[in-house]
């Protein structure tokens, strides 16, 4: 089952350049839905017809990455971040551009590696001898993602892009498993979340849902460097009460809590001061959309070592499936 998650994580899809990941998701879910379309922003919008109210599920399929902005005389490829790229986490990482070229993130002469490191002081070394050669390999505007393989150990999965291929995976699994459904269902795999919830803004406008549920990762609170929040790995699927971008609507949250209790699905509630998801854009669209967020505790966000517990993922699949099957009436 987790082979699909591995495939999702290994398929590149930096913000604004989600073609490859979108095609993979489309191929996997098409047999289980009535129609699939791609909108102007590149969002993948799948529809499963139903009689009840419109319920939209949203998981962003983009991941953080880098984009080439200019070149240096010695063959450096200077880059900007697509999304929240931490310069320290990027240092000496390998980058794969969408055209296949690879390189290593290296500091230029002005970088202070111990203090206030900035992305502008880093470049990608693609092994070019001069500016022309570098341009040939990686043109301005070419986007790339960090390289980081997928590994399973002790009930955990570790990879780059777990944010938010886990969300995509959970939603895809639930779509595959659903045996019945109550609502008129829209499954949206959104784009450009990491640069400002952009795909969510346009897709929710198109779908005009009555209710929405967002699936995304959230920072685990059970590591020494974490802020103090009651949010632990292997303690179940997370039902968010609030984060920096939204406060969950009680109709949606009560429904999810009730279903977890009825079906004995392990869950934990989370109230967070930080973090934001597509829910921030969706709940304020039109005249407002009652919105909830199903989340998964994740350690080391926006690094190539993003770690999630398999049991939390399975709990999330169970909740999402039962929510689809029983619906929000």
């Amino acid at each position, binding site marked *: 089952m987790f082979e699909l998650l591995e495939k999702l994580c290994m398929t590149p899809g930096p*913000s604004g350049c989600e073609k490859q990941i979108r095609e993979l998701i489309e191929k996997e879910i098409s047999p289980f839905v009535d129609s699939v379309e791609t909108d102007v922003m590149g969002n993948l919008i799948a529809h499963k017809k139903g009689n009840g109210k419109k319920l939209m599920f949203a998981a962003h399929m983009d991941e953080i990455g880098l*984009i080439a902005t200019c070149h*240096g005389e010695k063959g450096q490829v200077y880059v900007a971040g697509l999304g929240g790229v931490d310069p320290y986490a990027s240092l000496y990482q390998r980058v794969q551009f969408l055209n296949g070229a690879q390189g290593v993130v290296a500091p230029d002469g002005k970088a202070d590696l111990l203090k206030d490191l900035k992305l502008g002081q880093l470049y990608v070394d693609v092994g070019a001898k001069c500016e022309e050669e570098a341009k040939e390999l990686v043109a301005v505007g070419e986007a790339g993602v960090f390289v980081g393989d997928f590994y399973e150990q002790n009930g955990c999965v570790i990879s780059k892009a777990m944010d938010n291929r886990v969300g995509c995976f959970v939603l895809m699994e639930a779509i595959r498993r659903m045996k019945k459904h109550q609502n008129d269902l829209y499954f949206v795999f959104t784009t450009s979340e990491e640069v400002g919830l*952009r795909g969510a803004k346009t897709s929710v406008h198109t779908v005009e849902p009555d209710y929405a549920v967002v699936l995304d990762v959230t920072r685990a609170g059970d590591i020494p460097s974490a802020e103090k929040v009651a949010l632990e790995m292997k303690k179940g699927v997370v039902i968010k009460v609030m984060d920096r971008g939204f406060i969950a609507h009680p109709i949606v949250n009560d429904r999810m809590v009730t279903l977890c209790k009825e079906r004995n699905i392990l869950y934990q509630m989370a109230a967070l001061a930080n973090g934001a998801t597509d829910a921030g854009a969706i709940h304020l669209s039109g005249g407002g959309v009652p919105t909830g967020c199903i989340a998964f505790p994740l350690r080391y966000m926006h690094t190539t070592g993003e770690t999630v517990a398999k049991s939390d993922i399975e709990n999330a699949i169970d909740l999402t499936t039962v929510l689809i099957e029983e619906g929000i009436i």
Partner: protein
Amino acid sequence: MYLSELTKLPGVSGNENCVRSFIKEKVEPFCDRIEIDSIGNLLAFKKGYMDTGKTLMLCAHMDEVGLIVSRITEEGFLKFKTVGGIDPRVLVSKRVLVGNKQLPGVIGRKAIHLLSADERKQAPKVKELYVDIGAKNKKDAEKRVAVGDYIAFASRTVTFGDNLMKAKALDDRVGCSVMLELLKEPCPWDLCFAFTVQEEVGLRGAKVCAKRVKPDLALVLEGTTCSDTPGTDVSGVSTRLGGGAALSLIDGATVYNRELVLKLHKLATDAGVTVQFKQTATGGNDAGAIHLASGGVPTVSVSIPARYIHSPSSVISLSDYEAVRETARLLMQEVDNV
């Protein structure tokens, strides 16, 4: 070309009336319909020569960065706030025009010999500055100025050097001027020339107009940073003066559709128009609002490089101006093929 006239008009964000009136008069003879919407955008509509049902929106903002009077001191000096992104270092000793009556004034700060050692090391803060309109006292000043009056830079528009122009408000009167030059250009699609307000304070006019127009494709004509000057590392050079029209692949508000941008780049290059890519990822313009409007709008940005942008003396190359205009013209002609 109306660029010289346009740059002389005051039009600080929220106070675009002079610019709008000027533009309205120029577009009226060439458009089928003109609307001024609730926020103040001027929308000029023109039928295409084919019946495609599609709309191409060209967009440039009328507003410029400037100041606004926040308080009048007992001595008759004007305290102010900035409107839009202004580096306070460019303000000291600059000439300004206050209010609709264009009252002359000059921006002052405590003299250098009175500054403490610490103060000398720091950039001036807006709250330390004031506009001197030569008033005797508060009462005298209040006869001519009120809190809330807008303050625009006073700056002559001159051409100099290698086909360069220096003026205030080139961002984005260049876009306005280009659009006025293209009013008669044939286009198969229906056209909307959108002259927007309040871009400099958060793309506010564009948010309103994109939802109203619902275009199938949008072209944003803009001014952008140009730091091809001493002291800038290569990774900080966004555009080069004289390097042609700058096409954006990414900025702080938009990840552009790369295929669309590359098509426009090729279209221009094949036609012998000089173009460059903007090489930094910062900043943002009306495209940020437009591409996310309603269900999403395919959007491209073509900008003119402007040195010392957002200052009273920004500098452009008139050859870049022509490149921006010709790139826009090509898109209008070939809109079916991009």
